[in-house]
């Protein structure tokens, strides 16, 4: 089994932790704000009593002052469930060694799982290509990290990416609001992907996209006569890359802008994960930036 838990990544990210910035629904009391109002510590508001409300929550002191039945509501703090959605399509196989996108994504997934479980939240793992390949239910046990690592270790891409429908699928399945971390190169139709992500957001989930790209895919540094074999389809293209580099760069830029703008419109965190850069630094930078952002 490969060890996807890199100490240097964990060390840098652990201090920052993963804080939910939206309201999450947990089963246990935790560090994260819950949408549920109860009798907890922090008062939020009064509201009119309606039949069916638990009469234990009636503010009697208020009734004494106004002779009206009002309910006193408090902020509920709870834990969250993070759903790690890992793209294991064939396109993720691009890159050599540490820059291999899939390996990079596995390390990122492992690190995220460890961080989240370490702060007593739950993590669910979903691995997909054209369909769901691995699905581990949410768990907050430390041993779940081990399970996740084992699962990742056994992931082998078999098919091409079909992300959009799967995101709709998982959005329908997960009712409790939580965090979704999508780790993918997102080489699918932008509209389709954004549609899926929008669906997740519509379900009240906080969504973070870790867009894993290899430096070659961004910079396109090829020269000479190159035959490009498509990884997800049976096709190839013989060309002089240097001749089409400007057009390619423009196409990539347009795609990224379109995707980033779509994410921004939907309140989705977009994090570019260049496999050519150190994962620890990129992840730390994101987590730090996330920490500075107010909880909505």
């Amino acid at each position, binding site marked *: 089994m490969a060890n996807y838990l890199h100490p240097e990544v964990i060390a840098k990210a652990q201090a920052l932790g993963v804080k939910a910035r939206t309201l999450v629904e947990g089963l246990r009391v935790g560090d994260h704000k819950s949408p549920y109002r109860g009798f907890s510590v922090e008062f939020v508001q009064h509201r009119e009593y309606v039949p069916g409300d638990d009469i234990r929550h009636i503010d009697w002191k208020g009734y004494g002052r106004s002779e009206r039945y009002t309910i006193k509501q408090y902020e509920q703090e709870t834990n969250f469930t993070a759903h790690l959605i890992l793209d294991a399509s064939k396109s*993720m196989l691009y890159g050599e060694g540490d820059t291999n996108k899939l390996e990079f994504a596995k390390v990122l997934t492992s690190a995220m799982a460890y961080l989240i479980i370490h702060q007593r939240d739950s993590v669910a793992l979903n691995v997909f290509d054209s369909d769901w390949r691995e699905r581990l239910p949410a768990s907050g046990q430390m041993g779940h990290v081990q399970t996740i690592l084992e699962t990742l270790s056994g992931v082998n891409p078999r098919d091409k990416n079909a992300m959009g429908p799967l995101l709709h699928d998982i959005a329908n399945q997960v009712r409790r609001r939580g965090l979704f971390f999508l780790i993918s190169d997102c*080489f699918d139709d932008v509209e389709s992907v954004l549609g899926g992500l929008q669906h997740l957001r519509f379900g009240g989930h906080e969504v973070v996209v870790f867009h894993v790209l290899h430096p070659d*895919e961004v910079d396109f540094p090829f020269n*000479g*006569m*190159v*035959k490009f074999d*498509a990884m997800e389809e049976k096709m190839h293209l013989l060309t002089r890359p240097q*001749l089409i580099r400007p057009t390619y760069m423009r*196409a990539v830029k347009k795609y990224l802008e379109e995707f980033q703008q779509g994410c921004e419109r939907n309140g989705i965190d977009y994090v570019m994960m260049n496999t050519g850069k150190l994962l620890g630094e990129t992840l730390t930078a994101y987590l730090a930036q996330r920490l500075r952002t107010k909880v909505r």
Partner: protein
Amino acid sequence: MGFLTPFMLWGALAAGSPVAIHLFFRSRYRTVPWAAMKFLLTSVEQTSRRLKFQELLLLLLRIAVLLMLALAFARPISSVLKGAGRGEAVDAVFVFDLSYSMGANDGAKSRMERAQEEAVKIIDELPPHSTVQIITCAGKTQNLIGPRSPGNLDQAKQLVKDIELTHLATNLSTGVGEAQKVLERGQASNRELYVFSDMQGQGFDQEADKLKATLLQVKERTLVHMVRCGTRTLKNATIESIVPQAGVPRPGERVDFAIVVRNTGSEAMNNIRISLTVDEDEKKLKGAKADEKEIESTIIPKLAGGVSQAVTLSAKLTKPGLSVLTARIDHDDVPGDNRVDQVILVRDQVNILVVDGSPSQPGEDAEKASSFALMHALMPVKDTDRSTYKYNPRSRPSSIVSAADLKDADICILVNCALKPKSRMRGTALKTDFIEALDPFVREGHGLIIFSGDNVQPVDYNEILDKKYGLLPARLKPTIKPPDVVPFFINRDTFAKGPASYWRFSEDKYFESFDAVPVWQLFDMDEPVAVKKPAKTEKEDDAAVKKTPADDQTNPMQVIVRLNNGKPLAVTKRADKGEVVFFATATQPEGADPKTRSPNWTILNKLPHLVYFLDVTLAHLMKGQTQTYNVMAGDALNWYAADKLDHTYEMVHPDHSVTRLGVPVKIERKDSDDLAEDVKKKRDALKLDRYFLTATDLNRAGVHRITALAPGTEGVETTDSDLLVKKGIPIAVLPDPSETEDLGTLSVKDINKRLEFEPIHIVAGEESVSTGEDRLNREWTVWALLVLLLLVLFEVAFAWWCGRAW
């Protein structure tokens, strides 16, 4: 267009290398598994058309660069032969105009000297491995004189220096035609033609179409240079003719000769000195110093341009036989025509037998005789001078005349003679033996003149003189008379269409009264139908040069003069060595018409014209024996050998060089098939076959001499040309007068217009002209390199803009 180093064009095959490189790199690619195929496809889709266009343009640019590189290495030049060659080597052909106007003084040098210097300069500037062929041309002749080894430029220079002028007229067509053949045999890639001439107009006008067509063909593959060798306007006087004032020159007499001098230039000339000498070559050989007193000369104070003037000079003719008259002009710009020689026959007296067919009867007035007027016309001198007069006529009545009377006669004149007796005829018919003797008399070289009259019967004349002996110039028809009292008159202008001896009657106003000679009766004649000859072809021109005397046998009769009704009055015909003149009317009235009182025939006897006509006719018949001794330069000499027919003949030229002419060639006689057998036998017995020698290389004027070598010395090289001159028969060759008829030269514009293209014009002797530089100027290499540079710059810029490299 052509190339100096055409083999470098193989480098153009490198133009395929961009395609090969493209295919090579296309086959050498590396495979990359690629995830972001979507963007790749998008970018390729967006750029493929533009990229293909750019790639195609770059490919074409690179091919063009390589092609231009090969082109530049091949060193393109204009107007040269395509194909394999030897680099810059030039096949040059020089055509020299050898007409005698090229000998004209043009400044300090003659035109020929300028041509020679320019030719040597051009040879010196020829690139290595070049060849030179030299052709000379003038008149209808051209000659490829070498060098034998075309690459031997030293020999070529020596040949150029040794070129000698002829006395022919300019004709560039023949030389250029020969040059075309030589150029086609050349192997160098670079071909150049140089025409050295003074650019006289007639050089281009002679066979103008042929010259133009040839040069237009030549210039497609050859660079044509016209080298102008003279620029100065020339002053020239030429001797047109030497005309004896007496009909037949006689020995011991100082004879007057009219020397006609013409100023052929456009400017007036002053103080032209003309001199006349006789047999000066022989006197020189005898060691006698030229006696200044014997050389008569005169000066024409002023002669306007284009004007002719005759001066009379006398010369003493010391001996009978052939003499050479030499007339000279002391100096002008064109020395070639300053000396004119003429061979004349000097005789003591001309014996004339006059046969009167209608003599005066005893007791009759002498004027009744038909020969009365004729005899007086033959002796227009006092009785005391008759014994020394040039003509010695003897009159014999037809009744007594015999064949023996012809023995001493040079010319026989039949006057109103009947060939057969007829009733009520005045006089007697000629005897048969006399008529039979006339045939050999004429054919051996004597002259016969026949005057008409009442005794002349067309039937008899046609049967005997025409059909039987072939002596009559034309078959006779019945006499014709004018329809009314108005007689026919002589048309003087028609003399111009007859033999040259009679031309002066039409040209000289002194004889304009010929038009007033009336004729009341004359014999009509069968004129051979004139066949209109087609335009001369080139082959016919060549044939003209090679014309033999055998062609004369078929010559028809020639009309000397016609009347105003178009009928011939006098005709002539050659019969072997002799000649017959037939006069269609009588010499005197021969009675009058009782009704109209008009003379029966003519009143020619009462006018001086009979004297003129007889004098010229007698001179014409006598000159017939000497005319082959005077020829024009360029014409073929057909000289009849009278004896030593088995000897080998040689010709000594004025420079004492000798040409072997060989043995005289026999010309078979052509008798008509219906000729009587007895006449044929008699003619055969006379051995009337003629033998002739032909000399075709008479290109230089002066006195040439023909001599027979003694048997057994034919193989021996003749060394004593002086001896040959002493013994030789003189042949005077005259400069072609057409050369100086118009000394005007064509301008560059005129030449271009006539040739319909623009050759390179060079003026011989001008320092600024360099054919070497011109040759370099024709090279396009610099332009090719410039285009190559621009192409490379454009390719580099375009490739940079497109983001490409090789």
